[in-house]
């Protein structure tokens, strides 16, 4: 109990407060957009960033803290989206239950996949996750009960009776889906923070730094890795569920597109793998820069992006927050 109280008290840490502040801002923009359409574009821009942020927060647990490069992590985003959409469109369930089932499905898939691939290390693990994601994508392209290559599209009638803050139907969904995305993000942030501040988190860091030493120190590395992988699947699965509902459709080739997981990895690296603040900053900066490059250099944005990635990894391999933490170790307790 002592440790729980102590862990809860850590939210007074400046990094945690920064996270809470950001979350408050996300909600605020959503509420403003409900009242004034002038804020809708900001809301949508943030929504795009939040999808990436959830992917990054998930990856931060398995990649950042545990050191396993889950290249195919988008598989959990896809599975979350598919499970939710199947329940919403085929069964007419409400979004809240669909989200919970999606999160559970993500974690369950991670448990199954983890049993196969978590024994691999380094690049082998990374490549195995790519292979699994591709195999599962092909499965969904062919699995007719879930639409096969046609995907699942949401009927307007499924949200006809939805009400939210004075809106109804599709318009209510537009507002509510964003608020849910913000909530999912808050959950993912809290998850990251409390893992990082826990004995479990310290065990994960030990695995990342040296798995053999961690095991011989008493860390049940197999159980920890599996648990970390399952937890890391939850934020993308939830985001996938809400995003599919918001978009009103899901297709195999977009739901399981490797781009999102690679962008998530870059976001985590940019800020500093295994740090809370770094993951937040990395994902939001990445998303912002991408929006800028896309609108300013629509044809060369890939090139600029590629150069940026090389430059960051070669000249700032620990990420921004990671670099500061290494350079100024006394700031470690503030910059988490």
């Amino acid at each position, binding site marked *: 109990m002592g440790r729980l109280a102590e862990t809860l008290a850590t939210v007074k840490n400046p990094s945690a407060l920064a996270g809470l502040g950001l979350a408050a801002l996300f909600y605020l923009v959503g509420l403003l957009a409900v009242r004034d*359409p*002038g804020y*809708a*574009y900001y*809301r*949508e*821009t943030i*929504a*795009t960033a939040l*999808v990436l942020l959830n992917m990054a927060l998930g990856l931060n647990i398995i990649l950042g803290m545990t050191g396993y490069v889950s290249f195919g992590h988008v598989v959990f985003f896809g599975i979350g989206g598919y499970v939710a959409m199947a329940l919403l469109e085929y069964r007419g369930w409400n979004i809240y239950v669909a989200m919970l089932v999606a999160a559970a499905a993500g974690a369950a898939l991670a448990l199954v996949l983890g049993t196969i691939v978590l024994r691999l290390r380094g690049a082998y693990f990374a490549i195995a996750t790519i292979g699994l994601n591709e195999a599962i994508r*092909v499965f969904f*392209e*062919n699995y007719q009960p879930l639409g*096969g*290559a*046609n*995907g699942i*599209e*949401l*009927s*307007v*009638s499924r949200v*006809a009776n939805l009400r939210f803050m004075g809106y109804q*139907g*599709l*318009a209510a*969904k*537009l507002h509510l889906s964003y608020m849910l995305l913000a909530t999912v993000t808050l959950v993912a942030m809290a998850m990251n923070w409390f893992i990082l501040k826990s004995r479990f988190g310290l065990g994960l860091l030990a695995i990342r730094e040296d798995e053999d030493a961690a095991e011989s120190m008493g860390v049940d590395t197999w159980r920890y890795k599996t648990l970390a992988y399952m937890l890391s699947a939850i934020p993308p699965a939830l985001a996938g569920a809400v*995003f599919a509902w*918001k*978009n*009103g*459709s899901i*297709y195999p*080739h*977009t739901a399981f*597109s490797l*781009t999102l997981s690679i962008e998530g990895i870059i976001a985590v690296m940019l800020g500093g793998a295994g740090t809370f603040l770094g993951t937040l900053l990395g994902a939001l900066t990445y998303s912002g820069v991408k929006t800028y490059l*896309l*609108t300013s250099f*629509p044809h060369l944005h890939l090139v600029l992006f590629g150069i940026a990635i090389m430059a960051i990894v070669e000249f700032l391999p620990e990420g921004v927050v990671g670099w500061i933490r290494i350079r100024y170790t006394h700031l470690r307790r503030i910059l988490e």
Partner: protein
Amino acid sequence: MELVYYDDESTSDRVQQLYTKLITEDKVDFLISPYSSGLTAAAAQVTESYGKIMIATGAASDSIFKKGYTRVYQVYTPASKYMAGAIDMLQQVDPGIKKLAFLFENSKFAKSVATAVKAYAESKGYEIVYEEYYPSGATEFTTYIAQIAQSGAEALLGGGHFQDGQSLAQQLYQQKPPLKAVFILVAPTVPEFADIGDAAVGFMGPSQWEAIAPYSPDQAKTLGLEWYGPTIDEFVNAYKAEYGKEPGYHAAGGYVAGLVLQYALEKAGTTNPDKVKDVLDNMHILTFWGEIQFSSRAEDHGLQVAHERILIQWQKVGGKLERVVVWPAKFAKAQALYPIWG
């Protein structure tokens, strides 16, 4: 009238962001869809929420028009009607043919086309003796062609995108299985199909639109329809003057989306979306693009019901590779090359 547009990067996570920007920041009154059905579905969630009208071009899916939207209108012929002409043509050209092979891409678009044409072909008494869907991006078909050759199929329907369709055509030409006619989606309608040289000859494909299509104000009169907008020659010449090249069907489809809006606004005499919607729900016109009429039924509102597809075939005309219209018979300018490899 002012046109505002953005690059959507062909990913669904950007589409809603940009359509929201168009509606709330740029304050546009009417919208034109992104390219492809998947992106159009995502955009429709936003445009419908704001009660805006969207003209869908480049979106050939049937399914998104069966989801209950009330303000999305499709100018392309839906996927379900893409290949019907191929069956009609076969029936007329060679009533002896009974066995078909299907080799389509496993994508939303090609799968929809295949499902619809399969039902149609079976209703006309055809037997599908080979049916496979290859993964997106596939370019190696030799084994499947060998299987088709053994299956006893007399005609092949297939394809999906340009790259796979072109490779498929080239390999069919190299293997020359005992087929009499081959219909391929998308690839033969693209001018670059000619890059495979003589291998292109004889392949047929359904096209949304061709500059050689035969729509005219005169024809409108015979059909009892209203003609609207430029003639085909006027459109082609204006496009060439502006961009220095022949317009393809993407360009024509984009243009016609604007044309439909223009028509509706003129008729309604206002930008009030409800009034414009009334016009769109009830219009039936002929343009350089062909006939246009939208379903106004609740179960498939906005679906294109009148636009007809034509079949083109690559032939050697005076030693030069050319696309010629071979179907429907009333529009056909040339005799189809049949059977495909002589």
